[in-house]
């Protein structure tokens, strides 16, 4: 297998950039109205690639398709069904999946504003623009799509200066992608947590952390007579429709900022400093972004806010085990650390090292990373406003977006086995302090607590957490490589060859 260089011109920019300069963004959810017109637009719409531009472009358009979208475009069934099973079955259509992801109670798809029933988007158009440039850009794009698509919904976003609605700096931690492809492609145990991650964890058609490839359609080259598609790296005889693409998850998460701060405030009897500390413990970072595991909550200016792990805090005394960022990325290696030498390694591998076992309930984080590309929406609410019940009454929240090459092993795993789990790392009666549904478990146990281990004595426990975040909609998409997009828009992808 040759190591090919990365085809930046074929990769959508979102995989490489967060479009931070383009502080204005808007997402359009479209449904195909006229198939031919839709294809024609998709065949020529300018999509920004991952090639760096200096100065940054005024505007950028990114585009993703859902399963229903592929079908509406007339893409052959066998091609659609060769995407990963989670993509094919979609989001919000299967009660088992909803149960797993915590899309129950107020989060249940039957309450969604979009993404379920007749309101499943076909195409997601993401528009990014430098300040002041969005309105005209969006108008132009909407005019272009008007004859081919119905606009199911416009999801506007707000520039909150990198701070999510609860008031915490967001977007600090991201995996670092191995664009240079220096990371060895082989299946090998990693003894330390590393932020560097194989391309194949995010881009389809590249080898991942196991040295393997995740599901995407591979086609007989006869079905691609114009040779639009790249050849598969693992099977050069086949055309790779997935190459340079990714799976994209979009979930609209409404945040109850008033509810959050009023609850936290009530727990600490209105003490401002303690309020900050409790909120930081729930997130795992202070509002300024300092990881609570490395500090006692004071802002350490100039420090790398991402250079830490939880090795020295196995009990969760400094950062609670259930804190949002600790659940979302426990930052551990494939095997708990231990002494040097083969004997120690064998003991840990066979489970005979009791101390290592204590730290081994959660392992191998590197297979469960994701690129987060979400944007805030609604009006910002300050803490004072939240506490006094004033401020905008409109919805505020996060259009959560993440990218990955495996929906099952990345988004779904993190959401269900880590964030929503009531037993994450041996905890009980709690799920993610920000995201939890607080629905009791099947046997009636509560899930609305949050525990903070103390250096001495039993955990400190906060009880009766209300639900702070509600899912309002969501869908799975395929963010194609640009050539794959043109291929899907061509008539060639219909039917058998």
């Amino acid at each position, binding site marked *: 297998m040759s190591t090919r260089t990365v085809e930046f011109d074929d990769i959508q920019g979102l995989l490489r950039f967060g479009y931070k300069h383009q502080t204005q963004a808007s997402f359009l959810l479209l449904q195909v109205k006229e198939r031919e017109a839709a294809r024609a637009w998709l065949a020529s719409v300018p999509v920004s690639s991952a090639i760096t531009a200096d100065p940054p472009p005024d505007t950028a358009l990114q585009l993703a398709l859902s399963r229903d979208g592929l079908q509406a475009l007339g893409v052959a069934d066998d091609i659609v069904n060769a995407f990963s099973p989670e993509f094919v079955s979609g989001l919000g259509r299967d009660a088992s999946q909803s149960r797993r992801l915590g899309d129950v109670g107020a989060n249940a798809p039957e309450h969604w504003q979009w993404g379920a029933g007749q309101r499943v988007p076909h195409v997601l158009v993401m528009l990014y623009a430098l300040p002041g440039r969005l309105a005209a850009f969006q108008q132009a794009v909407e005019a272009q799509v008007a004859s081919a698509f119905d606009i199911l919904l416009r999801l506007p976003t707000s520039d909150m200066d990198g701070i999510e609605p609860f008031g915490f700096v967001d977007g600090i931690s991201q995996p670092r992608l191995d664009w240079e492809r220096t990371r060895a492609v082989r299946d090998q145990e990693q003894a330390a947590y590393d932020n560097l991650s194989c391309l194949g964890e995010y881009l389809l058609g590249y080898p991942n952390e196991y040295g393997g490839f995740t599901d995407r359609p591979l086609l007989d080259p006869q079905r691609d007579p114009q040779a639009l598609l790249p050849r598969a790296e693992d099977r050069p005889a086949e055309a790779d429709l997935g190459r340079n693409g990714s799976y994209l998850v979009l979930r609209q998460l409404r945040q109850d900022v008033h509810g959050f701060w009023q609850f936290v405030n009530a727990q600490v009897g209105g003490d401002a400093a303690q309020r900050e500390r409790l909120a930081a413990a729930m997130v795992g970072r202070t509002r300024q972004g300092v990881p609570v595991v490395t500090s006692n909550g004071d802002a350490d200016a100039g420090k790398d806010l991402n250079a830490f792990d939880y090795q020295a805090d196995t009990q969760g005394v400094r950062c609670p085990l259930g804190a949002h960022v600790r659940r979302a990325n426990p930052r551990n290696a*494939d095997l708990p650390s231990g002494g040097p030498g083969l004997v120690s390694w064998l003991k840990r591998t066979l489970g005979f090292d009791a101390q290592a*076992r204590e730290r081994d309930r959660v392992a191998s984080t590197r297979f469960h990373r994701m690129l987060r590309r979400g944007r805030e929406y609604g009006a910002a609410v300050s803490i004072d406003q939240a506490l006094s019940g004033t401020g905008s009454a409109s919805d505020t929240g996060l259009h959560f977006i993440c990218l990955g090459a495996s929906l099952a092993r990345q988004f779904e795993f993190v959401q*269900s086995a880590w964030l929503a*789990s009531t037993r994450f790392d041996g905890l009980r009666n709690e799920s993610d302090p920000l995201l939890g549904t607080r629905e009791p*478990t099947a046997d009636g146990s509560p899930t609305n607590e949050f525990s903070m*281990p103390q250096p001495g004595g039993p955990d400190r426990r906060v009880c009766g957490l209300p639900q702070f975040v509600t899912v309002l909609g969501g869908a799975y998409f395929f963010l194609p490589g640009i050539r794959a997009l043109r291929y899907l828009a061509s008539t060639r992808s219909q039917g058998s060859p």
Partner: protein
Amino acid sequence: MLVAPLAAGREASLRALLVTMNATPGTADPCNAVLPFAAIERLHFARLVVLDDALQVDLDTLGIPRPRLPTVLSFMGDCDGPAHEVLAELVQRAGEGLRRIFAHCEGFGAETDVLAWMQAHDRPIAASYVNWVGRTVRQIKEESALQRVLSASVSRAPVNSAEQARALHAGLRDLVNGEVRAGRLRLTPPEPTPLAWQVAKIAHLLAVPLVGLLALPFLIVLSPLLVYLLRTRESSDPEICPRPQASALAELQVLEDIDVSNQYTAIGAVKPGLFRRWLVSALLVLIDYACRHVFTCGFLARVQTIHFARWVFIDDKTRVVFTSNYDGSHQGYMDDFINKVAWGLNLVFSNGVGWPRTRWLILGGARIEQDFKRYQRRHQVPTQVWYKAYPGLSLHDLTRNQRIREGLENTQMSDAQTLAWLRLL
């Protein structure tokens, strides 16, 4: 594990009956009218599964003759004490329900003696794993009640001194003593292991290495040949890992993630030929040995989330059934398998038809993530009825509760131990 072929034309009616036993899809109502599992105090887990021969199509793929195998009902449970006693108790308490179920099987008539019939259909277990040998259902329930009382009553104010910690411990001891006296808590002392069991265990402990020792010279002499046989097979055995049908997957997922624990039942054909047959038999003997004597308190290598697991040969050793009861989600279970014990899975399952390619028996195989995940889902069978005696409790809870009790009863703890104990609450 009981295995009995279904009588012709009775499958649909059996499935309908099994559904009536459930409270939620696949999970038994503990007090259902057919088999009120909860009445059997020593029963941890139980399941009823219908196994067909659909996967035998893989033999066609290999171009070897495919015997038609009957669809069977399989019934199994994990219990404290001798299985035959628990079985007798079950027959006594739920004989009528058992009759209703087994009336769907071949050779079961109105006059059949249920217990004798069940014993006659029992299949030996090739290897079995118990997370914590000797931890009884009663102990689990009593300790869980204890934990709830303690966690609800302990003061959660920071503890600043050792005296304070000791005072807390003493106070909680008094509290529990009071609860016990009032009959609201019970803490039954552990029953001693019967002498016969201990003797059998020691005999087994010695016998297996002895046989191994006897076989060793032959194995050494034969090793080049064995390695040759293994490596040629490993490089040519076909992999059969197509994606499972979406509908089959959905049928499995409906049953999952309702409790903190889940069930897993899978079936597969052993690769043809004596080499694989003997290899897998020998390996299961070794695994059973390790489970009985080494992995007896809380972990199977790095995996700490399996309550019970077992491997059973059926159909004259041409097929193996694997079942387990585990904590967490299916996705988490599979990731644990891949990331923590792929080598262990490969040892056994690489002798199954179609397993992803291994090297040297332990490398590759389950580490080929996508193939492995497809393979295991394709070989998984829906468990029609599944019972767990202590819903809501994970192994982590069981172990913690056990340590809570031990600490409560221990008046000689050091200061550090007392603090660590308080942290468990």
